[in-house]
């Protein structure tokens, strides 16, 4: 039987997903379920003088209408403060009672016999707003006299900090020149195909809360529900079955979660809330809205010696569970990549505005790659160097690693240079440049973009320390069933990444059992070991697999001990293969796992006391200091811009990456391509835009444009799989596409427009923006 790790085994989950037997949150049907709908603010900033819900309450079919006051004493207010110096946060409840602070702010929740009736009731709620001036930009939010969102805090400054690493002055003094770059990124959002949703079912008899949710961190949810509702954690069960895409944002507790859970508590009945698409686009949250100004101290060869960065983030009105200083820290901790920078100062300013919450979205620190790669291109342009050459000069080689970067982050086994050189070859870079020459001779706007980055997948402990988050060791449990099959219980929470399959592959190979004999269980706090973080940060292939390897390792030792007893052979002389334990060199001396398990569980006298006790192994995994580090990739793309319409055609897109050995190549390819599609959407199509009145402009799929099969190109992927001595060699890849695509597309478009001498310093690169850049049309107000 061949090993399954490394092969594109068909996914276990597809059997149900392809036949419509998935179990998503709206598929959950509990008897007596009521349905919730939220009344949301239609103004960006206002005092709420009055909310009159009487007409709504008396509509036939309505069980209750709750406002902020109804949840006082029932729900502990949200206070995400974490003692970060310089970080100021408000306290707030699930519903807004005194003020509305963004279009979409939840003000009331109706619970009725159907969502249809609940929405009817929303129309019967009268709200008297006293509108206040609003702010939409960081600049306006921090201006003197700006309207303050949370008056008790005095101003809109959420976070202000300066971090300095190394001797920045010296680096700039040694510079041959200073090169600047700016990139302003817009707000966009994750827009998973499945919106948020939950079914809260509180049983007053037992005092237990069952909570189904479209969420990727069920244990986190359980802890938070417990804290805010005053229920003991062991009386809360969170079940997350199939989740239709999470992409970061669904790893938090939301105000709506608390409102829905509280409603169930108060009514003693199941309450279901399924977010509709308008809510999801308007009120779930926005990501990536940050501006970075960079100054680089550059030597005569184009090597960046020192960096000064100023970053401004648009926080939106309400804090989310994951804190914006942490996202800033992600940028700060990763921006130096595998460069030879000696010193850096990084100033961060985060301000509250009358927009939706800043949320985590696949590759939340992506601005670090966007900004750094734009800067490298700016350096290259000033020195007249090619995009590949500037990166060659700046990227650390393997021989130079490990290197501790000025920000305390170790770069080790980061094969960025290798991906760059391989990309040059595999993309036929030199020929691409020659083709570009020919195209330019015909006045065609063809551009080539190159970008390289390293991503913490899962990231060394010192990277996590720099980010300011201490992740806990990850558990996994593997049990040998009485029939010789395996159950793997993971605390990963798959939302499309295929963990049900990939972790089964890892366990199957480790214990020599057929792939089909491994069943992976996830997504139920009653069954899975506690793990606060859930899935995310491209950690599963290292941490999730690492935990499974630990647990299967323990189980294997135990199995071999028992088999040694049965076969009267030393454990060291035994091996596991094809679902059996057999003596090496004497394969007829064997016992199937089925027989061994059956006897261990059912015939305790056949073994020393306690035999079966070890066949259910719970283990924890955490990379040691210096291991579990970086994945690297280089993306190369060729675009052609239609100078008359500003449309960008992507002619070629090549990825060379190294995430170590692949558990399932098809799964890896899917993650990369999916990420690229999201990055492309963010760069060219998607915009969570507000007008100057603070009204949200992208509340449907007619105005929030997701890329379709005609906008996403064919992506060629090459894997380097450079061997390392890492005990758990798999590294993550889930976010790299989303991080890299905006950077490489920005570079390619700027390169295409080189005849016009424009710099790309703002996203999105819509057709309007491109024609404005080349001067074909006048600039209208910035979007």
């Amino acid at each position, binding site marked *: 039987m061949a090993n399954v790790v490394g092969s594109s085994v068909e996914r276990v989950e597809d*059997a149900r997903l392809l036949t419509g037997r998935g179990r998503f949150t709206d598929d959950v049907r509990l008897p007596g379920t009521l349905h919730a709908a939220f009344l949301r603010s239609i103004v960006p900033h206002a005092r709420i003088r009055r909310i009159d819900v009487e007409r709504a309450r008396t509509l036939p079919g309505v069980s209750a209408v709750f406002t902020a006051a109804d949840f006082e004493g029932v729900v502990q207010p949200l206070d995400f403060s974490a003692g970060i110096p310089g970080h100021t946060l408000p306290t707030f409840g699930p519903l807004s009672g005194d003020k509305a602070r963004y279009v979409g702010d939840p003000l009331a929740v109706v619970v009725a016999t159907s969502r249809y009736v609940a929405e009817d009731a929303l129309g019967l709620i009268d709200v008297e707003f006293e509108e206040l001036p609003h702010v939409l930009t960081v600049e306006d939010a921090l201006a003197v006299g700006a309207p303050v969102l949370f008056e008790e805090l005095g101003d809109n400054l959420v976070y202000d900090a300066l971090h300095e690493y190394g001797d920045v002055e010296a680096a700039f003094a040694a510079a041959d020149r200073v090169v600047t770059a700016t990139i302003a990124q817009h707000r966009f959002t994750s827009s998973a195909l499945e919106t948020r949703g939950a079914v809260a079912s509180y049983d007053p008899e037992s005092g237990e809360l069952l909570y189904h949710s479209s969420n990727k961190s069920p244990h986190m949810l359980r802890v938070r529900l417990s804290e805010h509702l005053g229920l003991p954690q062991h009386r809360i069960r969170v079940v997350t079955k199939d989740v239709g895409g999470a992409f970061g944002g669904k790893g938090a507790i939301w105000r709506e979660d608390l409102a829905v859970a509280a409603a169930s508590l108060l009514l003693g009945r199941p309450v279901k809330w399924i977010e509709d698409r308008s809510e999801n686009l308007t009120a779930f949250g926005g990501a990536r809205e940050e501006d970075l100004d960079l100054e680089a101290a550059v030597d005569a060869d184009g090597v960046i010696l020192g960096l000064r960065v100023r970053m401004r983030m648009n926080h939106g009105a309400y804090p989310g569970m994951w804190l914006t200083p942490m996202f800033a820290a992600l940028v700060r901790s990763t921006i130096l990549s595998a460069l030879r920078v000696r010193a850096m100062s990084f100033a961060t300013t985060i301000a509250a505005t009358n927009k939706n919450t800043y949320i985590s979205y696949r590759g939340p620190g992506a601005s670090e790659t966007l900004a750094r790669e734009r800067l490298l291109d700016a350096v290259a342009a000033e020195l007249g160097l090619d995009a590949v050459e500037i990166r060659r000069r700046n990227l650390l080689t393997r021989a130079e690693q490990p290197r501790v970067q000025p920000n305390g982050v170790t770069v080790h086994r980061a094969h960025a240079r290798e991906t760059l050189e391989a990309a040059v070859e595999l993309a036929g870079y030199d020929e691409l440049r020659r083709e570009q020459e020919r195209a330019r001779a015909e006045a065609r706007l063809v551009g080539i973009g190159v970008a390289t980055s390293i991503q913490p997948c899962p990231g060394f402990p010192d990277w996590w320390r720099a980010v300011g988050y201490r992740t806990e060791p990850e558990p996994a449990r593997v049990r040998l069933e009485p029939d010789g099959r395996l159950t793997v219980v993971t605390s990963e929470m798959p939302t499309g990444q295929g963990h049900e399959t990939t972790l089964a592959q890892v366990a199957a190979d480790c214990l020599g059992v057929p792939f089909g004999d491994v069943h992976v269980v996830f997504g139920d706090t009653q069954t899975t070991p506690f793990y606060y973080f859930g899935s995310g940060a491209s950690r599963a292939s290292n941490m999730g697999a690492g935990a499974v390897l630990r647990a299967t390792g323990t189980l294997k030792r135990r199995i071999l001990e028992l088999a040694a007893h049965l076969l009267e052979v030393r454990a060291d002389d035994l091996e596991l293969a094809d679902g059996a334990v057999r003596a090496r060199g004497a394969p007829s001396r064997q016992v199937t796992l089925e027989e061994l398990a059956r006897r261990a569980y059912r015939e305790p006298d056949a073994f020393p006391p306690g035999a079966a006790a070890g066949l259910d192994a719970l283990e924890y995994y955490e990379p040691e200091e210096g291991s579990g580090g970086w994945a690297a990739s280089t993306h190369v793309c060729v675009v052609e811009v239609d100078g008359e319409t500003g449309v960008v055609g992507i002619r070629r897109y090549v990825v060379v990456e190294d995430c170590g050995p692949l558990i399932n190549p098809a799964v890896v390819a899917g993650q*990369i391509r999916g990420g690229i599609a999201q990055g492309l959407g963010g760069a060219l199509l998607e915009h969570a835009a507000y007008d100057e009145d603070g009204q949200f402009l992208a509340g449907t799929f007619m105005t929030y444009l997701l890329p379709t099969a005609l906008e996403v190109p064919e992506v060629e992927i090459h894997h380097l799989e450079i061997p390392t001595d890492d005990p758990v060699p798999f590294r993550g890849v889930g976010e790299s596409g989303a991080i890299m695509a905006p950077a490489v597309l920005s570079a390619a478009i700027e390169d295409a427009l080189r005849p016009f001498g424009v710099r790309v310093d703002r996203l999105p690169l819509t057709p309007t923006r491109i024609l404005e850049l080349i001067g074909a049309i006048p600039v209208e107000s910035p979007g």
Partner: protein
Amino acid sequence: MSGTLPVRLTVNGEPREALAEPRHTLADFLRHGLGLTGTHVGCEHGVCGACTVVVDGEPVRSCLMLAVQADGAEVLTVEGLATDGRLHPVQEAFRERHSFQCGFCTPGFVMTAYAFLRESPEPSRAEIRKALSSNLCRCTGYQSIVDGVELAAEKLRGDGRGSGG
């Protein structure tokens, strides 16, 4: 008539009947009235295609049809494609090509592909992309779905050679 009306139709070959308010969409009727939750709701304004089913032989966005309009109709949903426990070639091909990830857009794509291949049994890759551009997927970047439809077309034609690429 604004109270409920009986809707009698054939779904996946079986006669079904349930009550619906005139304003209930066919999508909600299938999911909650008939308990067929395979059809998914992604946007409720006809753009994402996750709700695609086949009505009287035509691919249709079930969120854009009122349930009462399906009275007397023959509806095919994703639950009706596999027969006798065997996956339909479209489903088989999608599985072989790892076409999907989270599975939420999947039923809509399955039905769209099913209907498309009945009208265009020998599509080029470009034609497949164009046909699939009617549905949104957030996970895959579409290439694996195109691969799946390409393989499904071969299977349905009985090519049996396996995909060329």
